[in-house]
C-alpha cells in the first residue's frame, strides 16, 4: 500500500565501480570526457567502450591538453568540464591546469586512476600521491578505495565543482575500486553540512551599499568573472543602466557587458585602459562586483583607491578585505544581490564624470590605440589583426587567448556582444592554455565561431593538440601572432632590464607546414595588404584553419602600469 503513496524509487543496479563512474557521468549529463588512458584507469576505459553513444571521449595528446580543453569547455558553456587520466604521470600532468582552474574558478571534475589500494604507499609502478599533490590547488579532492563509495563521492564532486564559487575537484579511484562490485543508486548531491556555498544576503548591507551609491558623485564599477559565473549579466546590465555608473572589467570579466555598451569604459589593470586606471584614484565610491582585486588589477595597494569608499559584492567571504579594505561588503550570489541593489538605487546619470572617462579615452586613442589598430606603415601590428577579426565576427565569436602580448592586445581590442566569449588564463597566466582551451570551447559551443589567438611561444607549449583538433574535426580558427620572441618577457627586458634579451628570441619552425601535417589548412602572411583576405579566407573555410601573421618583432603593449607602481602612474608609452 505504501508503495502506491510514495514516489517510485529508482531501483538499484548491480554493477562494477568502473561502470558506476560512467553511470554517474550520464546522470550528470556529461557530454564530453577529455581524457587519456593508462594502466590504472583501464577498467573505466573498458566500461566507456559501452557508452560511446552517450558520452564523447576526446583523446587529447597530453593530459595538460585534456585539462585545458575541459576548462575551455566549461568557460564556454558554464557547465562542469570532465577530465580523466591515469595514475602517476597522467595525474601529475593535470596539475598546471588544475591550478589554473582553481585560481580562475572554473568548475571541473577530474577523475584519476590510482594503483590498487593494497599497493598504496609502496612506490608501486605509476603511484603518486595525487591527493596530497593536488590538495592546495583543488576546491576538494577525495580518494575512493571501495566501489560502493563511488556514487556518493562523484555526486559530491559535481556539486562542489559547480556550486558557490566554482572550482576544480579531483577524485582518485584505486584500481580495485574500479573492478569492485556495488549496488548502484544515484542521488544527486544537494547539500553538504560543512559547506555553505552561497552566503545569505544581508538586507542591511544591501541598504548600506544602495545609500552609498545614491550619494556618490563619482562612482565607479569594477566587474569580474563573478558576473558571468553567477549568470547575472542581465541583472548587472540593469544595475549599471539604472545608476549610469561607468564600468570597467577585469580580464575575466570581459564579455559580461557588451564592449560597445556606452557605460563600458574598458579594461582595468596592468595593460588596461588609461581612464579606468587613472580614475580609480579619483572615484569616490568603488563598487567591485565578482572580482578579487588581483595585483595585476590594483598595482601598488598602498596607493590604490585610497580616497574611495569601497563596496564589494562577492560570493566568497574570504575575498572580503583580502587585498583591499572594504567599507560595505555584500556577500551573496550576485544575481540576487544585484537585483536587490538595483531595486534600491536611484535612477541616475553621471554625465560629467563619464565625460572624464571619454577625455582619457580620447588621449589613449590618439597616443596608443589608433596607431595600434590602424597603422599605415611599418610592420604589421597585433592590434590591427584583432581589428580585422572584429570586422568579420562583429563581436559574436568566442575568443580564446594564450598568455603574453597577444593576450593583452586581443583582450584590449576584441569586440564582444555576448557573455562567455572571452576565454583566457587570467590568474595563473598559463602559456599553452589557448590551443586546447579553444578546442574545448568549440566542442562545447559548436554553433559559435571560436578563434584562438596565440603567440609563437605559447603555441609550441601545447602544439600537439593540433592532433586532437584534427581527430575531432573541431573547426577552431588559429591565429598565431608571430613576433619571433617570447614577446611579453622581451618587453620587460626592454623596459626594465636595459634590453638584455636573455633567452627570449625564438627560431621557429614552419607552422603552416606543421598544420598541414595534421590535415589543417593554413597560410602565413607578412604583408598588411594580405590581411583582410587572409582573415576572410580563414573564417569562411569549412573546418579548422591556421593563420600565421608575422608582426613587428619588438612592438610593445601600452598603456602599462609598471609592476609595483600605482594605477595612476599608468604609462602611455
Amino acid at each position: 500500500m505504501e508503495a502506491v503513496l510514495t514516489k517510485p524509487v529508482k531501483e538499484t543496479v548491480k554493477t562494477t565501480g568502473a561502470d558506476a563512474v560512467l553511470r554517474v557521468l550520464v546522470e550528470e549529463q556529461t557530454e564530453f570526457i577529455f581524457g587519456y588512458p593508462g594502466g590504472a584507469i583501464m577498467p573505466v576505459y573498458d566500461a566507456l567502450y559501452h557508452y560511446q553513444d552517450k558520452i564523447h571521449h576526446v583523446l587529447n595528446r597530453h593530459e595538460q591538453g585534456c585539462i585545458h580543453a575541459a576548462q575551455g569547455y566549461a568557460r564556454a558553456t558554464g557547465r562542469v568540464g570532465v577530465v580523466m587520466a591515469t595514475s602517476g604521470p597522467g595525474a601529475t600532468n593535470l596539475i598546471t591546469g588544475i591550478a589554473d582552474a582553481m585560481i580562475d574558478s572554473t568548475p571541473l571534475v577530474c577523475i584519476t586512476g590510482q594503483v590498487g589500494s593494497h599497493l598504496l604507499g609502496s612506490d608501486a609502478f605509476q603511484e603518486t600521491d595525487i591527493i596530497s599533490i593536488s590538495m592546495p590547488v583543488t576546491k576538494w579532492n577525495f580518494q575512493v578505495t571501495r566501489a560502493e563509495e563511488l556514487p556518493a563521492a562523484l555526486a559530491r564532486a559535481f556539486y562542489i565543482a559547480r556550486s558557490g564559487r566554482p572550482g576544480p575537484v579531483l577524485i582518485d579511484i584505486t584500481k580495485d575500486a574500479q573492478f569492485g562490485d556495488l549496488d548502484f543508486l544515484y542521488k544527486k548531491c544537494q547539500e553538504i553540512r560543512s559547506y555553505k556555498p552561497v552566503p545569505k544576503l544581508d538586507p542591511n548591507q544591501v541598504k548600506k551599499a544602495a545609500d552609498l551609491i545614491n550619494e556618490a558623485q563619482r562612482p565607479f564599477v569594477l566587474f569580474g568573472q563573478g558576473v558571468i559565473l553567477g549568470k547575472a549579466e542581465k541583472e548587472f546590465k540593469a544595475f549599471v543602466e539604472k545608476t549610469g555608473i561607468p564600468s570597467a572589467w577585469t580580464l575575466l570579466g570581459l564579455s559580461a557587458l557588451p564592449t560597445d555598451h556606452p557605460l563600458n569604459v574598458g579594461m582595468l589593470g596592468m595593460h588596461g585602459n588609461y581612464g579606468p586606471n587613472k580614475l580609480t584614484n579619483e572615484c569616490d565610491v568603488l563598487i567591485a562586483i565578482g572580482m578579487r582585486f588581483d595585483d595585476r588589477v590594483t598595482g601598488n595597494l598602498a596607493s590604490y583607491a585610497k580616497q574611495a569608499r569601497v563596496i564589494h559584492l562577492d560570493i566568497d567571504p574570504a575575498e572580503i578585505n583580502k587585498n583591499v579594505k572594504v567599507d560595505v561588503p555584500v556577500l551573496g550570489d550576485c544575481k540576487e544581490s544585484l537585483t536587490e541593489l538595483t531595486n534600491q538605487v536611484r535612477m541616475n546619470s553621471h554625465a560629467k564624470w563619464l565625460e572624464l572617462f571619454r577625455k582619457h579615452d580620447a588621449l589613449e586613442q590618439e597616443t596608443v590605440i589608433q596607431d595600434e589598430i590602424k597603422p599605415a606603415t611599418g610592420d604589421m601590428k597585433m592590434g590591427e589583426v584583432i581589428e580585422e577579426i572584429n570586422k568579420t565576427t562583429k563581436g559574436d565569436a568566442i575568443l580564446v587567448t594564450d598568455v603574453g602580448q597577444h593576450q593583452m592586445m586581443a583582450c584590449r581590442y576584441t569586440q564582444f556582444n555576448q557573455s562567455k566569449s572571452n576565454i583566457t588564463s587570467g590568474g595563473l597566466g598559463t602559456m599553452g592554455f589557448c590551443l586546447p582551451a579553444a578546442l574545448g570551447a568549440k566542442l562545447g559551443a559548436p554553433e559559435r565561431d571560436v578563434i584562438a589567438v596565440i603567440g609563437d611561444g605559447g603555441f609550441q607549449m601545447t602544439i600537439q593538440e593540433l592532433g586532437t583538433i584534427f581527430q575531432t574535426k573541431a573547426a577552431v580558427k588559429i591565429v598565431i601572432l608571430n613576433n619571433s620572441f617570447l614577446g611579453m618577457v622581451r618587453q620587460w627586458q626592454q623596459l626594465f632590464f636595459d634590453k638584455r634579451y636573455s633567452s627570449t628570441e625564438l627560431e621557429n619552425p614552419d607552422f603552416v607546414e606543421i598544420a598541414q601535417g595534421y590535415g589543417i589548412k593554413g597560410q602565413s602572411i607578412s604583408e598588411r595588404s594580405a590581411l583582410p583576405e587572409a582573415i576572410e579566407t580563414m573564417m569562411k573555410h569549412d573546418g579548422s584553419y591556421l593563420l600565421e601573421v608575422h608582426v613587428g618583432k619588438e612592438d610593445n603593449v601600452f598603456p602599462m602600469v609598471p609592476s609595483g607602481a600605482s594605477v595612476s602612474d599608468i604609462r602611455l608609452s
Partner: protein
Amino acid sequence: MEQKVFTISAFTENSIGLLNRITSMFTRRHLNIESLNTSESESPGIYRFTIVVKTTEEQVQKLVLQIEKQVEVLKAVYHVDEETVFQEIALYKVSTKSVADGNLVEKLIRDNNARILSMEQEFMIIEKTGHKAETQELLDFLRPYGVIEFVRSGRISVIKPMEESEDLRKRITNF
C-alpha cells in the same frame, strides 16, 4: 602590524587529508605553526583543531576565512590568549636515582604541581600540565639532574565567553 600569538579553533568533519589541507594554508603563507592539536569536540563526529600561530591580526583574519572556506570545515575562529583558557601537558623522563639523590620528589610535587606517573628502578615519568612557561620552568629545573626524554603536547584551548561558546555550538550542530 604587531605580531601576536593567536589560537585558531577549527571545527571539522573527520576526513583523511584534511590536516594536510589545513596546514597547507599556513605553508603557502610562509607561516610557522607553533603547535597543533586535534581531537573530537563536544559534538560527536565533529573534530576540533587547535592551532597556535604567531602572526598579525590581519593575517590571522584572512587565514581563518581561508580555513573556513574548505569544504569539510564547519567553522573556524581565532582568539588571543586572554579570551581563552588553555593548557599543555608535558612528560619528563628522568633518572630515578638522580631525583632521589637530589631529594627532589617533594619539591616536584609541592612546588611544581607535578605528578609522578610511573616509577621504575631506573627511571621515572613526571607529568605536568600548564602553560608553556610553566612546563618549561620545570624542564629547566630538572635539566641539571639529567632529562632522558621530554615531550610537550600542542595547546588545547576553550573559549571563555559563554555566549560565544553557545553560538559556536549552535552553528556547528544546526544545519
